[in-house]
């Protein structure tokens, strides 16, 4: 298929590992030879089937590698200056540009340090500085945050987003972590088995994933097999009312995101939520500021549902499970989305 | 940027080809305008007694070094492995390897003296009331004495590669075996040796190649290339060239030797070296 990434846009690529995300980046960079197909920058042909037409060193593409690929034998200053030296810039100009970008990315203090003396965040910013310093026409980011501590990731994402917006830099970011994609990109594509299966805004992919696999890739989701009887989906003792005539299949897969549900001890009406039945709490764990509660329907211990809660709930207790009916996703037995409708999406399934 | 390497590497191939062409001619000092004579030089070579003696010597030296070098190298590597002190191990390893850094001229002359029946090793054996060894009494003795020099010179290689194989066995496996009550001998035969296949292949290939090409030590020890006692295939090439001056016959023998060497070298390089280096 042909896909055109517009100038100045941040494009995200989601997908399971080993399905060709990184290969796509490397094809764009010119590090990989396409077996078939063409890569164009604007109207300029870069690679064709079986050959590289413009060598990577002449493409003016910058890439931040997963492990940052800093030159261990050079200081931070020399690392950042390297692309400029290769462009045969004057010493004075190199110095000016390196100091400017170092200032912006808060690297001034460590300019004389070697990579092995840096913290993870500093290494990542050095890699970013080295990529940005030559004003590339495209910035490629390959899992740029996966080697960072979780606590550092949000600020790193914010930094990349700010820089991308300020410079209107065409950016392509590859990640298996949907948080990277949602926080930075304008448009995202999902690659499975080397093919784009869905392209759209990150919100559209999150809300209307075309298949269950895409649903899993774009964020946590509970996928529950359900029987449909009289416009109601049944999962053990849980009953989810569906709109009249909405679903014609007898068996469906219901997708519920953990953050789109609530657990209540006592039945209570909350606007936008409906009570679908009682569950028992199995495990409560705490990650990144929220409790993740695993619950099972009262009548079936083998079904696990993950719910995000802002308070701890003791295992063994019973609770009411509430869901947002407008957020529910329904897939047919072939794991394809049947509700809600796919919106504004370019799909090639 | 690969031009110098490709140039000189290319010259080797070119020279080998040239060698082959010369071997099909009848070029010698007496016949300076060579003609194509097909395989005549090879047939001439096969009629020569020296050809067969030099083959048997090469086989003796090579098999001798590969066998003794492997066994002794394995033994010494095991001894070094069980030394608790890393520095001592490193120093001892260097001592086993230093003969390879000594120019063969020096090696040959020192061993000639060590084999001297009055004032050499035999003097010491006599002092210790041990039977003296008639090093150069018969051709076979002389040849075995040469194997001993080879062993002294090249066993360090075997020690190096066996020790490397041993040391690459995961420390935790050794410790687990120790906790299970394995003795050192058990450890050697049950854990270390089964993990030394690479060490064995490398050692055997390198000892073969070094022994197969050994020229300087037999050449100097026997005084010149004319003495048949220590003549090997490679000294015979030089003999044919420099003394008989049958250039085409020398080239024919050289071609045979090169083919034998290549049969070992190329699989070793492509299936062994390259795989070990680039496995990632």
């Amino acid at each position, binding site marked *: 298929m042909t896909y055109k990434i517009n100038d100045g846009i941040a494009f995200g690529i989601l997908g399971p590992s080993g399905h060709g995300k990184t290969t796509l980046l490397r094809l764009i*960079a*010119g*590090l990989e030879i396409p077996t078939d197909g063409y890569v164009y920058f604007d109207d300029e042909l870069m690679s064709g089937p079986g050959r590289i037409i413009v060598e*990577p060193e*002449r493409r*003016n*593409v*910058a890439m931040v*590698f997963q492990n940052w*690929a800093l030159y*261990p*034998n050079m200081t931070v200053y020399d690392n950042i200056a*390297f692309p400029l030296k*290769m*462009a045969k810039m004057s010493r004075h100009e190199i110095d000016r540009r390196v100091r400017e970008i170092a200032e912006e990315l808060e690297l001034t203090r460590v300019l004389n340090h070697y990579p092995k003396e840096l913290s993870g965040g500093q290494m990542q910013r050095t890699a970013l500085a080295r990529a940005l310093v*030559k004003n590339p026409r495209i910035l490629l980011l390959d899992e740029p945050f996966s080697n960072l501590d979780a606590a550092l990731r949000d600020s790193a994402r914010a930094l990349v987003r700010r820089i991308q917006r300020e410079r209107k830099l065409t950016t392509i970011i590859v990640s298996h972590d949907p948080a990277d994609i949602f926080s930075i990109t304008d448009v995202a594509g999902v690659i499975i088995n080397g093919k784009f299966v869905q392209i759209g805004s990150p919100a559209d992919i999150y809300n209307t994933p075309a298949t269950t696999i895409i649903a899993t890739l774009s964020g946590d989701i509970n996928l529950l097999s359900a029987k449909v009887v009289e416009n109601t989906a049944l999962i053990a003792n849980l009953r989810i009312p569906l709109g009249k005539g909405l679903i014609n299949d007898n068996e469906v897969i219901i997708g519920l995101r953990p953050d789109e549900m609530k657990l209540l001890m006592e039945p209570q009406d909350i606007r936008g939520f409906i009570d679908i039945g009682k569950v028992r709490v199995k495990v409560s764990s705490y990650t990144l500021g929220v409790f993740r509660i695993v619950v099972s329907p009262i009548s079936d211990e083998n079904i696990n549902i993950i719910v995000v809660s802002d308070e701890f709930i003791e295992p063994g207790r019973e609770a009411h499970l509430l869901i947002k009916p407008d957020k529910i996703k329904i897939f047919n037995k072939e794991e394809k989305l049947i509700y809600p409708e796919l919106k504004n999406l370019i799909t090639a399934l | *940027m*690969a031009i110098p*390497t490709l140039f*000189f*590497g290319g010259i*080797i191939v070119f020279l080998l080809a040239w060698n082959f062409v*010369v071997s099909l001619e009848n070029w010698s000092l007496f016949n300076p305008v060579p003609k194509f004579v097909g395989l005549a030089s090879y047939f001439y070579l096969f009629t020569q007694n020296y050809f067969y003696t030099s083959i048997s010597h090469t086989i003796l030296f090579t098999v001798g070094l590969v066998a003794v070098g492997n066994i002794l190298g394995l033994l010494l590597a095991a*001894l070094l492995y*069980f030394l608790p002190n890393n520095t001592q191990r490193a120093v*001892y390893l*260097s001592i086993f390897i*230093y003969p390879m*850094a*000594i*120019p063969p*001229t*020096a090696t040959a*002359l*020192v*061993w000639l*003296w*060590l084999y001297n029946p009055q*004032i*050499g090793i035999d003097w010491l054996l006599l002092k210790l009331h041990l039977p003296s060894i008639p090093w150069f009494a018969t051709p076979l003795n002389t040849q075995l004495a040469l194997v001993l020099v080879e062993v002294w010179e090249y066993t360090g290689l075997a020690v*190096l590669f066996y020790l*490397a194989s041993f040391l*690459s066995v995961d420390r935790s496996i050794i410790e687990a075996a120790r906790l299970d009550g394995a003795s050192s001998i058990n450890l050697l035969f049950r854990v270390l040796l089964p993990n030394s296949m690479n060490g064995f292949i*490398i050692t055997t290939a390198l000892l073969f190649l070094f022994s*197969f090409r050994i*020229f*300087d030590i037999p050449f100097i020890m026997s005084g010149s290339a004319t003495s048949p006692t220590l003549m090997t295939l490679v000294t015979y*090439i*030089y003999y044919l*060239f420099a003394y008989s001056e049958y250039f085409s016959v020398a*080239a024919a023998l*050289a071609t045979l030797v*090169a083919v034998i060497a290549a049969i070992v*070298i*190329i699989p*070793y390089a492509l299936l*062994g*070296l*390259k795989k070990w*280096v680039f496995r990632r």
Partner: protein
Amino acid sequence: MNSKYVVRVIKYAILQLVVAIFIILWLTPLYAMLVGGFKSNMEAASAPILLLPKQFSTEAYYFDWFGFGTLIGLEFPMIRQLLITIPVALASVVFGSMGAYFFYIQMERRPWVSNIGFSIISLATFLPAQTLTVPLIALTSSIGIYQTYWGLAFAYFIFYLPTSALLMSIFLPVVPNYLIESARLDGARDWSIFWHVIFPLVLPGFLSTLIFVFLMVWQDFFTPLIIATKPSLYMLPVAARQYVGGYAILYNRSFAAGVITSLVPLIIFAFLGRYFIRGLAALGGGAKGI
């Protein structure tokens, strides 16, 4: 408990003793050579070679260094050897490294190029040099460098430049591929990548190769034997051969010649032996852990 401890101590003592015996055996030739050179001629001819000199004499060194009669002194061969070996080894390793880098990056782009290159450099490294006797002399004669320093250097390059490339091929993979790719995206061409990124990172491997090749060239007896046979071109191993036994007057002088030939290699081995051993290990694919 106590007897177990005693058994362990005895085992340890036996281990140390057995190793020590082999070490002494291995050092004996070196010892004999060193003491022999300091004996007087008479003593060297008659006294057991494993005994220390009764009278310390440097006469043999004087004799060997300046030569005597038809015997050529080792002074000029030594200088010649240094002046030729150093640049030959250095150039071999620099050019060999570049070749190795080329084969390394061709591994992924065109594996067959890399395979052929690897076969040729391995062949050149391990091939018995004697197999090239006839064409090598014919070639150097036909381009007019037979019996010259140039011819000698040329012949050394034929054998040792590919050797350097082979060893460097084994040291190069310490540079991860992603650094090379990163440098390409930073706009560096192969030449810049080699000097700015690869070379600084393989410096230890470069040193090992350099030391190894230096010692191999220094020891090479055969190449000067066929290419530089004129006494005015004698290289050290060939010149030293004049002093090898058999002649009635050469007892202590023979040992001294051995010492003079081995002096530079021994010093290098004593101080940089680690690198030489790593170079040797590379012949077997790296032997990690040594």
